[in-house]
């Protein structure tokens, strides 16, 4: 379980997250929606231990996020994943295998094949959507308990989005993973998420407010 208690994060004079409280239950797919600058990516960075909160605390299974015991249970997939110019999907898999001992290499290669991605091609030559697919495959195969995805549907065509949805769902159900997705795509989130939240001006809104926004968008 991820517990976010009274988290505040400021960048200079700008308060990005203002006393945010959130609990993400185990084996769930939690969708978090918010406008640009709402603090969605910042929240993910705080959970993954990249950023440190100015106030409050975040615990993963009761452990602080800065500890290895908590971090090894989390795979963080940012919106823009880093890779070296000479990296291939295979070298990316090997890279993650160094740090996540339960990384399923064979399954990763199988997923790459399913996505029609050449495991020996240069990642730099891939389109944005292809890179996204490759990193989603790596994230799922890392076999961590928690998966944090930032803008996971960005750049994917409807067909691939469907496949990704299926993959994420099966990961949550089959591997008992807890997935936190932040995205602009409310409809996609609505399709796969078991829990939802709306981040607005640094605060999490209630379910009613979320429904009202859905109606407004429709």
């Amino acid at each position, binding site marked *: 379980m991820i517990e976010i208690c009274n988290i505040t994060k400021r*960048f*200079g004079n700008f308060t990005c997250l203002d006393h945010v409280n959130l609990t993400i239950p185990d084996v769930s797919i939690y969708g978090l929606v918010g406008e640009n600058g709402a603090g969605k990516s910042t929240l993910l*960075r705080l959970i*993954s*231990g*990249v*950023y*440190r909160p100015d106030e409050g605390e975040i615990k993963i299974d009761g452990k602080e996020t*800065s*500890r*290895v015991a908590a*971090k*090894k249970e*989390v*795979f*963080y997939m*940012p919106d*823009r*994943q*880093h890779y*070296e110019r000479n990296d291939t999907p295979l070298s990316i898999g090997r*890279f993650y*295998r*160094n*740090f*996540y*001992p339960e990384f399923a290499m064979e399954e990763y290669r199988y997923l790459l094949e399913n996505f029609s991605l050449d495991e020996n091609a240069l990642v730099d030559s891939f389109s944005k959507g292809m890179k996204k697919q490759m990193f989603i495959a790596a994230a799922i195969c890392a076999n961590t308990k928690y998966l944090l995805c930032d803008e996971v549907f960005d750049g994917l065509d409807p067909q691939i989005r469907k496949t990704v949805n299926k993959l994420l769902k099966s990961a949550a159900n089959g591997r008992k993973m807890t997935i936190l997705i932040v995205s602009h795509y409310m409809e996609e989130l609505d399709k796969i998420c078991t829990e939802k939240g709306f981040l607005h001006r640094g605060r999490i809104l209630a379910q009613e407010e979320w429904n009202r926004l859905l109606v407004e968008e429709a």
Partner: protein
Amino acid sequence: MEGWKRFSGLLKEDLKSKLGMIVAVWYVLGMFCLLFSMKMTVPTGEMRSLYVGAGNTSFFAATIIIGVIMGAGTFRFLYSESKIDLYFGLPFTRKQLFAAGLINNFLIFTVPMVLCRLLFFSISLSMGYSEYESSAVSVWAGCVVLVLGFLFVMNLSMLAFLLAQNTGYRIGLLVLFLFGPGTGIMLWEKMLKALVPSFYRSELLEMLKGYLSPLALFGNAAGIHEYADGAYWTMESHLPYLLYLAVAAVILSLINLGVFAIRPAERRSGMFTFRFAEYLVRYSCMALAILWFVSGLQVFSSGGNSAVIMAIGVLIGVPAVHGLLNMIIAFDARKFLTGRWHLLAELLVMAVLLGGFSLWGKRGGEIPPKENVKSAAVVLTALRSGDDSDQILRNMQLTGEELFDAYDWLWTVSGEKAGRETTYEVLAKYELQNGKTKYFKYQIPWYALDEFEKIYNQKSFKEGTYEALRMDSLKYAEVQWTNGLESYTLDLDEEERQKFLEIYQQDLEKLTFEKICQQTPIGKITFASTKNQGDVSGYIYPGFHKVLTYMSQLGIDADKKVSDYELTKIVVDNYMFTDGLLYDVRYLESEKIITDPGNMTDMSQTLFVEDFCVDSLLHAMNPDTEFTVYYRDSAGRTVNSVKCLAPAK
């Protein structure tokens, strides 16, 4: 086990990302090894092991450059948001990420450095340039010094790159770290010299220079300034520097670990990661700039009123530098007039700093009480026929009656007010009963030298001033003589050399200060060593009868003057001197060529070889006219020339 496996994976990935650096380090150090091994410029008899030792300048320079580059590039991922997401998102603590970077940097430098030097040493041994027994310690010590120096410089560079957020500022901060302390101490010394007329040097400053300036510390540990690439590197003399270097490297590593652990991953506003880094830059730069400004004012006002100069420094210099620093730190010209509270704090800090200098300087300028002085040394800098001033201060030790006489003379001359008349500079060193050492400099009028004869005739004074009186004959392989026109190496065996040395010492002991003020040396003796242990020279005065007699027994007319040679031409150059604010300018006003034998003979009677007019401040020579005398040597087949001077009228 799982944790170790993950960490080793991190080490592996980090090494992969530094592949370019690994290749560069191996290439540079490997090439050095080969180049030095092949170098064929070894002087005869000199041990090749010098170049494998700690002070090898090329290895030293390479260590600094590699240290700076590797320190700057250790955490390159901090400069890119996507890389920060990747590395800080991995299952490692910040401490583990730091440790991986440090361990890899250490290995990347140390492994090739040690292996290349060992290979280099092996080649040197096999070629017969080195001896294993005499060089092994030097080789291993060289490895230790360079590794410590690398860690030290790398950590300094790393700290600069962790504290600043922009490449330009990172480089600026690195320059401040590397050169700031040395510059600060230099300015401190300048201030003391400007504020305290009697300030000559301070042991504390000398020590701080050696330890606080990063490059000087590393250089001292390696013995880089010593003879032939630290050939005489010994553990005893370098251990304090080595220990300090090691401690500094460890402390800097811990500071970097702390900074890396708390450093925010997100980019902050401003040019520095932490506010304290900004304060560090602000106040360090302010102190350096104001000290430099005040020193400059002192020079251009020719040592004007110190209180006024300091007030100008604080009231004009501080606001101006404050504005400049505001602009530099914020990178915004509109910020020139901001930060009023900082300005107030800076005014206070600089007033306290300059006031402190003034007070400390005044206290330091007081001559110590007689009962507190254990021994003393005195140097009359105009007496240039003796050793170098610093060397004399190191070697002379006046105690007992000699000390009392010297103290009384110094006490009297330090109170003499030198007016517009000719002044002489006297340096004094007092070793106090409490173990401290104090140095002073006095400007004394010419008439104060009347009492100097008593000091000059002291046994310890002469032994301290003339190395020829302190030396033994054992290490000197030959004796050379010159009168400026001719030179010979005397054909003497060891016993004769010893006898000659004793004769020279007897004549030198009889030399009086009065004679020095009246006479110019007529020759020079050099006791030369073939082992590069430093030659010792001494002048021959007209009153050195024993030396001159002994030389004549050897068939050398050491009494021969310029006028005794067959002259072919004398060129007389008249110069015009112009006093400048900082430098004096000399230019040729007229030139006259004399070839008439009668005129040449008359003129040459009064000439002295310029190289021997060393005590010209005591026995005045005319600096405006230079004579180039063309003469035939004793064999009469070669025409040579020599520069000469005539006494002042």
